[in-house]
């Protein structure tokens, strides 16, 4: 009890407690408790089917849990909001499979994502403000796609699409970034740059990374949460986790 109250203090940005969701009797998430601090970089690992993506679905409003509490920024009940509302209060998500808007150019992708008014009437009448244009230019610089702003997204390489999607997250200026497998299909060079970028974002943003690649997770040097069968199995630094016998058992089947 004490541990719980200690963790749900004012600096907790994302608060998930006793969350359970099942599909046809299979409990994808089982009494999950997860607390993410403001400005933290957190990695979430776990074997297939551990509930990582479902956890993100719950936070972003795609899936409704059967029970449990999910709040954001201390007092916002995420379960009462739908996807667009959750996005507008500052939660951005990068999908496991890169989903950029293929038919739009790089610039247009960023333009659609950039923080600002979302209503159709407004966007029919008005273009981008100078501030928004600047942000797009800045982010394009960061993700290394400044030279390809006019290119349709469908011609980008897999790694570039991953970067564009991260860029779309950045222009969106969320408080919390949920990043699902950001380095899948990337070269080592690209991975290193992605790692640097994510680390540099922490502090000003809160970043949750779901990843399979252990080397990459180690390179982030952050707090790690291990999910297993829909609940938290272990939490701590990467070194702690690697020493944990439970984790070894789950991962290696010992």
């Amino acid at each position, binding site marked *: 009890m004490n541990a719980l109250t200690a963790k749900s203090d004012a600096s907790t940005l994302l608060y998930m407690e006793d969350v359970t969701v099942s*599909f*046809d009797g*299979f409990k*994808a998430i089982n009494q999950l408790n997860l607390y993410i601090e403001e400005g933290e970089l957190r990695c979430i690992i776990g074997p297939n089917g551990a509930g990582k*993506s*479902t956890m993100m679905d719950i936070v972003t409003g*795609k899936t409704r849990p059967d029970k449990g509490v999910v709040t954001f920024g201390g007092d916002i009940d995420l379960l009462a909001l739908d996807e667009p509302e959750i996005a507008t209060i500052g939660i951005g998500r990068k999908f496991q499979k890169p989903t950029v808007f293929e038919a739009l150019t790089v610039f247009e992708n960023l333009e659609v994502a950039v923080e600002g008014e979302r209503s159709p009437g407004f966007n029919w009448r008005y273009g981008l403000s100078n501030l928004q244009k600047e942000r797009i230019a800045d982010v394009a610089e960061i993700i290394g796609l400044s030279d390809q702003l006019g290119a349709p997204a469908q011609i980008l390489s897999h790694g570039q699409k991953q970067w564009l999607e991260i860029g779309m997250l950045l222009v969106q200026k969320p408080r919390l970034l949920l990043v699902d497998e950001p380095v899948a299909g990337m070269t080592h060079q690209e991975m290193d740059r992605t790692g640097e970028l994510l680390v540099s974002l922490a502090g000003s943003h809160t970043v949750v990374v779901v990843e399979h690649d252990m080397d990459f997770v180690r390179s982030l040097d952050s707090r790690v949460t291990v999910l297993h069968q829909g609940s938290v199995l272990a939490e701590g630094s990467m070194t702690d986790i690697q020493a944990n016998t439970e984790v070894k058992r789950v991962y290696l089947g010992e």
Partner: protein
Amino acid sequence: MRPPFRVNPHTKNQLHRMRLFTAWLCCAVLLFAGRFAIGSEQNDLIDSLAEELRDRKTVAQAIDTIVSSSSEKKGEWLEFILEGKLYVRKSDNKVVSVVKSDGGFTLSAASNDEALGEAGKRDVSKIKINNKLRAKLRAALAQLALSNPDPEKRLEAVEQMLSKLDDDKAEAISKLSATESDPDVKEMMVLAGSVHALENGSKEEQLSAIASLGVNTRSIVSQRLQVLSESEDADIAAAAAESLEKIQKRISIFEKVETVLFGLSLGSVLAMAAIGLAITFGVMGVINMAHGEMIMLGAYCTWFLQYMIPGFIEYSLIVAIPLAFTVTFLVGMVIEFLVIRHLYGRPLETLLATFGISLLLQQSVRTLVSPQNVPVSNPSWLTGQIHIDPALSIAVNRLVIFFFCIAVFMVLMWLLRRTFFGLKVRAVSQNRQMARAMGAQSSRIDAMTFGLGAGIAGVAGVALSQLTNVGPNMGQAYIVDSFMVVVFGGVGNLWGTLLAGLSLGVANKFLEPWVGAVVAKILVLVFIILFIQRYPRGLFPQRGRAAGN
């Protein structure tokens, strides 16, 4: 375009059939009356009686002779005498039956129905009878009909008499009922006695008749009870009213049962039309807008078979089913090979291309066969009704189609669940890449699956050819309906498709008497539209994370 739940022409057809049946019954009573006499030579008897018949004094005697004769036409003669249609031609003492025409009579020989041309009123003289003789004639006629050796004919005779019972008939019936051996006929005879007692009996007889009739749903019973319920005698009125109420309740239950049965048969048609689509759409994710045309081709296979071998109609359906399956299976494979496989992953393009195919198929049939509907005959074992109760009967073809639908469904389930082919189909449908890696030739499986969907549609077409008109446009109406059934039942769930088809059929039939066929159809459509929008995955959704992607 015709409304797709095309039941009206069929019901009309049935009505027509029923009317024929009644007419035939009337004839039967007359014709079979004299059947147990063999010889047609006995038919000349009537002419030898001409003199006696003309004379008022001897006519009774002559009638007795006729009654006791063994002529096969004696029923007819007696009937004619009773109706005043039997005359004697003065010129040659020939007994004739007449039909009145302008200013004269058209004659035909009573002995052998030979047409004898026209005659003036004065050339013939009518065989005149008095009331006493009339009663005698009626009794004799009733007696004749009721002593037919075939129990079914006796049953029909009693049934026929129910609505126009008089003392003579009632007496004849009650006499015969003592010796009647067939239980059904006997029951009917007792019923006739009670019905007669309702009208003409003493108070006690009436009361006991009301009690013994119970909840008989024959309309004649209701009519008589209706009269009695307004009787001045309070006891009788009360008993009759009570009985009447029970009967009406029973009839209304039977009406509901009938609606359900009608709905089930319509539903089985819908389900059968939809199952093929459920395979192509549910298993392969391909929407085949030419699905209705596969149904149409199946129906045309039936027609073609009957057209080529006209003497083979009784068994044509049994051959038509495999024929239609093979033809549409092959057509489906060809379509898959030429068009569908180039469009996988582009469902909307598939929709357009298959729509084009449906136009091509329709127009081909119009050009090659005819733009008009073609006649498809029903084999005799599919016609007629099964009578469960006077207020409840089922058309045989609808019953057969219901069970046929279930059978097709079962075979399909077995094919998909229990065979190696089915295993491969399911594997490909769930994960194309993986199945391919495991060695399933997904392109061949796809072609076979699409062919299977088309083949089932073809078989459905054979069944539909027995219910609706067969024409180039017949398939069009089914595509939206089939799709609705598939979606309503839950895509990818064959059980759902079956249940959805049946329940939509029943719903449609319950709505029809309220609002008419067209509005019922619209209401069902609107309901499904709203339903899909509320539950996009149908009645029996496939749940889980995979379903969302």
